[in-house]
């Protein structure tokens, strides 16, 4: 109270004409906003605790609820906006680093929205995907740059290990611990049904999920949690996580409170101990060091698994990628500054890194210029929101996209961005058994399959419109893209012309 008081961000509006006092909202809100007043015989709410997750709104049987942004306001000021001032108050109250989760919400440019896609008219025919075959399958891994023949003159056909994807999308890394068992089960089952891959994140692989190994990317991060020989061999590919778009240059910290039961066993660390991932890998200080880890992992898996190196999109990403492409890695994953997270320092999330569109265009160009594009496949992530974003990424040079936020939305996430509290009302970013069970993987995996099936249809529609019948023929085909409202420099980096040119 007094100087420490900050007016609640949201208001809970209950239509008392409709509320039947069933108390469903009360039972469903883990933030304990709603309660029943015996004295007054009505439901009341303590809106200070509301995070606008929409759980109560979605389950209220009479549509009696809505959550609105409070209009109690500080005096308007374009420089010192309400949020900015409140953050100052919070820090003056607590003395702490501000924490946030999910992706960067600031109105920074979204280049996808300034890029338009071509279509065929008159001189080249569009293709109808409902009548003609349309290929969306992609293979990730090193591709030979020239044809080689054996002593007998026959072409050598052995390829380095590849990852086959039925469409150019994978579910990106989210650890067991940061998300729930049921969220992982939903992702694993959907990836298997779809013929794509999901990613364990840095928390190890729960023993129940080894059976989905063919559709799993197993991650090795700086904390090396849950990494052992069987784990490395369980997946279809291994990913070395150097960085994350939401918090480049920052490690991870899963509080001890979440390291319980199976999470502790899977991570191979004692219960209730904090899981701290250091900012660097303590054995990697150069591309040569990275090469050693890449080959250690390949050695441990008999050179059967492609190795992905995941980095955050930062200023000199093109040079970094060029180094990684020479390190023996098979795939480079670039995570843009709009990517999500279970928890990150707010200032880092909102101010560090660069847009993935620019990073992708720069990396693809650099690798082509250096003649090493075939050394690696490129995967991009960090807020890929739709099939159109996927198409644009592929045309800019990506082999595939990583999606996480969109996948979580399909599971019920309403982007309230309070994952760090561990009280996710949708059973996703939580380990509380009563909340985890709110996500039934039968429903979750079916919704993920629906989402990706819809995207696949849209990808085929858009490709057909361009007169392209194979996603491989679209990769790096920047002629299919035009910019709107972009300046010369932006167009130059993206390697595309302006609309009308």
């Amino acid at each position, binding site marked *: 109270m007094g100087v420490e008081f900050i007016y609640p961000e949201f208001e809970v509006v209950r239509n008392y004409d409709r509320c*039947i006092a069933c108390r469903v909202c009360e039972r469903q809100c883990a933030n304990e906003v709603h309660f029943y007043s015996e004295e007054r015989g009505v439901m009341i709410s303590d809106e200070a605790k509301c995070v606008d997750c929409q759980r109560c709104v979605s389950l209220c049987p009479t549509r009696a609820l809505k959550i609105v942004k409070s209009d109690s306001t500080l005096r308007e000021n374009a420089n010192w906006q309400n949020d900015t001032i409140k953050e100052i108050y919070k820090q003056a109250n607590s003395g702490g680093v501000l924490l946030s989760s999910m992706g960067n919400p600031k109105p920074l440019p979204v280049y996808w929205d300034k890029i338009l896609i071509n279509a065929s008219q008159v001189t080249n025919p569009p293709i109808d995907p409902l009548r003609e075959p349309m290929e969306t399958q992609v293979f990730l891994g090193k591709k030979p740059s020239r044809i080689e023949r054996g002593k007998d003159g026959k072409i050598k056909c052995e390829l380095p290990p590849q990852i086959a994807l039925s469409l150019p999308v994978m579910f990106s890394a989210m650890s067991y611990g940061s998300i729930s068992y049921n969220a992982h089960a939903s992702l694993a089952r959907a990836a298997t049904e779809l013929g794509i891959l999901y990613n364990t994140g840095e928390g190890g692989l729960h023993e129940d999920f080894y059976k989905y190994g063919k559709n799993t990317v197993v991650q090795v991060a700086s904390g090396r949690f849950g990494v052992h020989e069987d784990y490395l061999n369980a997946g279809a590919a291994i990913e070395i996580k150097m960085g994350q778009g939401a918090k480049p240059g920052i490690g991870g910290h899963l509080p001890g409170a979440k390291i319980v039961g199976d999470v502790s066993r899977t991570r191979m660390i004692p219960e209730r101990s904090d899981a701290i991932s250091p900012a660097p890998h303590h054995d990697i200080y150069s591309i040569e060091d990275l090469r050693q880890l890449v080959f250690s992992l390949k050695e441990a898996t008999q050179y059967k698994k492609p190795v992905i190196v995941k980095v955050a999109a930062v200023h000199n990403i093109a040079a970094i990628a060029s180094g990684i492409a020479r390190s023996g890695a098979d795939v480079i994953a670039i995570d843009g500054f709009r990517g999500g997270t279970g928890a990150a320092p707010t200032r880092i999330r909102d101010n560090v890194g660069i847009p993935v569109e620019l990073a992708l265009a720069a990396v693809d160009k650099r690798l082509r210029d250096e003649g090493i594009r075939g050394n690696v496949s490129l995967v991009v992530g960090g807020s890929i929101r739709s099939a159109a974003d996927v198409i644009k990424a592929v045309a800019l040079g990506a082999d595939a996209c990583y999606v996480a936020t969109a996948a979580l939305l399909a599971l019920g996430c309403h982007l309230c961005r309070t994952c760090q509290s561990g009280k996710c009302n949708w059973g996703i970013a939580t380990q509380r058994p009563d909340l985890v069970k709110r996500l*039934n993987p039968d429903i979750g995996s079916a919704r993920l399959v629906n989402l990706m099936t819809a995207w696949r249809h849209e990808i085929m529609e858009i490709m057909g419109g361009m007169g392209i019948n194979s996603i491989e023929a679209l990769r790096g085909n920047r002629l299919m893209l035009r910019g709107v409202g972009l300046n010369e420099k932006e167009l130059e980096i993206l390697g595309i012309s302006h609309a009308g040119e």
Partner: protein
Amino acid sequence: MKRVYVNEEWCLGCHLCEYNCAYANSGLKDMVVALKDKKIFPRIRVEGEDRITFAVSCRHCTDPICVKSCIAGAISKRDGVVRIDRNKCVGCLTCVLVCPYGALAPGEDGIMQKCELCLDNACGAPACVTGCPNRAIVYEERSETQ
């Protein structure tokens, strides 16, 4: 025949099934009119607390003990569904005593009522199942042995 089965693993204890049941059997077109400021008498009940909850309604037993014990012959089984003729019920509560699932209970008027799978009301299929947010109850065909 199709029955309502319980997947207690997924039950949230939200009690929505009870309200959907009461509404479905109210015969009214608006849930607010049907349920606001009223005590509800659902034919499905959420049992258990905290960690484990599950919704219980009539199992439509293969050999229903309620049918055998009703002194007024009000309960009968037709097309696999155990039904009650509320005009015949004399309110002796014998069925309440014998049903191992607690599936019969007095309605607002004191006469016994039970789940009849919403087959005779406007829903046509169990409203509790349709409204369950987490598939904790399902309406499906299973072999008798299961």
